[in-house]
């Protein structure tokens, strides 16, 4: 009896640690990413940047018109973007139109990055100085916006998009927005 009590007491730390591990695991899989953006519901802020592959030409707000578009902010120096990359390619394969915004990066490594990992973007705006911070409220990479066909921001995701979110939230949202477009 006494011995059993001792085992019980000895088990307390283990129970505590297991509880902690479960919580940490939950914390790790939990996405702390749904930060309401004041931009949601508004039309896209101004965007005038050179193209990554063709420095002479520009990407403007016009790219968002008539299409449902994802704007994905990324950089070649961003480890989480690499983690997110397969999700973007998956979205591309499912017919989602993605515009990239290469954030505070250099041209050569950015192009090399796309060559190496595959290019999910239809166009990439090259934001050397991080101007998007001011207009778009970007404060890290990756960040992703979903824009409706009239260039309104519908959704924002902060951090690498897990495949589950792409499947459960983003793709259905894109499809719904497209439907709305054809109906109107």
């Amino acid at each position, binding site marked *: 009896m006494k*011995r059993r009590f*001792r*085992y019980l007491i*000895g*088990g307390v*730390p*283990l129970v505590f*640690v*297991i509880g*902690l*591990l479960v*919580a*940490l*695991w*939950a*914390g*790790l899989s*939990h996405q*702390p*990413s749904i*930060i309401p953006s004041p931009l949601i519901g508004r039309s896209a802020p101004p965007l005038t940047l050179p193209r990554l592959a063709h420095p002479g030409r520009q990407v403007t707000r016009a790219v968002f018109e008539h299409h449902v578009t994802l704007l994905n902010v990324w950089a070649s*120096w*961003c*480890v*989480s973007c690499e*983690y997110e990359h397969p999700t973007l390619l998956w979205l591309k394969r499912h017919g989602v139109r993605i515009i990239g915004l290469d954030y*505070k990066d250099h041209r*050569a*490594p950015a192009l*090399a990055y796309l060559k190496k990992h595959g290019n999910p973007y239809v166009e990439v705006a090259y934001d050397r100085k991080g101007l998007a911070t001011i207009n778009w409220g970007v*404060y*890290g*990479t*990756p960040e992703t916006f979903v824009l409706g066909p009239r260039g309104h921001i519908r959704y924002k995701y*902060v*951090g*690498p998009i897990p495949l589950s979110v792409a499947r459960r939230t983003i793709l259905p949202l894109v499809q719904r927005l497209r439907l709305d477009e054809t109906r109107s």
Partner: protein
Amino acid sequence: MIAEIGLYALILAFLMAAGQTFFGLAGAGTRRLRWMAVTRPAAFGQLFFMALSYGCLTDLFVTSNYSVRYVAKYSNALMPFFYRVAGVWGAHEGSMMLWMLVLALWTSLVAVFSRKLPVVFANRVLGVLGAIACGFFLFTLITSNPFVRLLPPALHGGTLNPILEDPLLVIHPPMLYMGYVGLSVAFAFAVAALIGGRMDAAWARWTRPWTLAAWIFLTIGIVLGSFWSYYELGWGGWWFWDPVENASFMPWLIATALIHSLAVSEKRGAFKSWTALLAIAGFSLSLLGTFLVRSGVLISIHAFAMDPKRGMFILVLLGVMSALALAVYIWRAPLLWEDGGGFRFLSRETMILLNNILLVAGAGAVFIGTIYPLFIEVFGLGRLSVGPPYFDHVFIPIMFPLFFLIGIGPYLSWKSGSLRSLFRRLWIPALLWLLASLLLLLLALDSHWPLMTWLGVFFGSWVLLTAFIEPVRRLWLRFRGEPVRLPSGVLGMSLAHFGVGVIILGITVSTTLGVWRDMPLKPGQSYRMAGFRYRFDALRPARGRNWTGVRATFSIFHQGRLFAVVHPEKRHFFPDGGTTTNAAIVGGGLHDLFVSLGNPLGKGKWSLRFRYEPMVIFVWLGGLLMALGGLLALADRRYRIALEVRPFLPIEGADERVDAPEEESL
């Protein structure tokens, strides 16, 4: 080629660690001397190959070999040589390499200095250390291989975060790692002793110097980090209670408790199961710290350079190690309940028990503050951050009773102390303390100090005055011709306790009496604060090897006379454009003056921050005194005697008892 050699050596080091684990644990379990004979050479082999692999990575950094991804990302030919060497541990992969190099180093040290320990026990210790190393090797090889090639090679390197380009920061991580990883030795000793089912005075005696050594490194590491953040981050302040700092502070608190409870386990044979638990908790917390820092669970979304896969791996590693250790603990701890003798309330055991309770409670408070935001978020209760006010209100009150006890604990005898002998030893310092306090009250009553200042000064001076009673008493007895020795252990303890007093004074005075103001000024204007006048003389462009920026000139006047001329700077680093604020700090004695450049506000105006920090240097001085005290204690002869015991070699049956040599009075 070098990269491939490095990777190959890393894999070989892993195999060595695996061999060390197997032959250490299985050899000890089956009492096969031949198997056990392999463990030590495997440990040395692990160090050799780990050092080779680390050397390869360093070579890649120094030669700026951009065909390796990690190098291309974090090294730049523009960086000075020194920082290219140190840049190896500037980011995740390399710092894991440093971590494992340090672990291999500790393991080899244990292998060298455990020759006099019972063979079975030494093998178990090395086996446990090997298992820890295996976990980290797997982690590095699978999720963070630093030798991955980059094809095609990058044309130019990336950069280290410019903030990290600082000589102090170069030695800060190695120190901290020596501390973190050093705790694995205490962990391994505890687990090995638990497996063997025998925790005796000898075990505690063997563990003490290792724990002390790890604690010294941890102390120095934390002091350096705090000093660095004070002069480099640019906005003053030397402790922010941020998760990264807490991650090093929690193991430190536990290690401090462990050092004290080990003393009881050694001298009195009591608290053994508690001591084992602390040893397990100390290293588990340093793993937890690694997890918190590397996985990004706690840090805000700004820390995007985190990879969730790595976080998961470290979590599994942490889980497996601490759960296994605690399972062994459940299995064996009930055997340890038969304790060495009881003790009265008024005894040193009680004091150390209280010390442990308070330190663990302090660590618990820090733990809750660090982890609470995560819980809130996981359970969908919103987002929040726990700021310094929480820690100030919860942690600091826990420390006050501890400060009072520091002055008393060392002067009670083991088992049963008496108030009379305590009074006999303490009345002179107590009287001095009362007189000094009264004098201070009279002198400073009209100075409108906040309550905290008074409390801090009273407790701090109490600790300072009582710290050296024992050495002074012994010297006095010796002076009178009595044969009393003054072991360096006693001196070390006194010095470390004195350091605590110095820290208390530094912290309270600098935080409660410090002043800071943000002021927009343009060149030519002046500002007056806390008795000093700051004149903004000029602002000029400046440049260094890999940065451009601005450099301001301030003349500081005190009582009408020129006190100092300082040059705060703002630097923009070119390859990737990070910015650092290099504050100008003068003083270094009783008070620091601090000027830092904020941002241009237009029309020639700049936002500026002025700080007046009285006695802030005491914070780090106290920390260094503690570390020095630890070093002195480490030099104590007793540990060397303990190492020279030639124990009976147990080959069959249960572990034999090893008789400790004659114990000294402390």
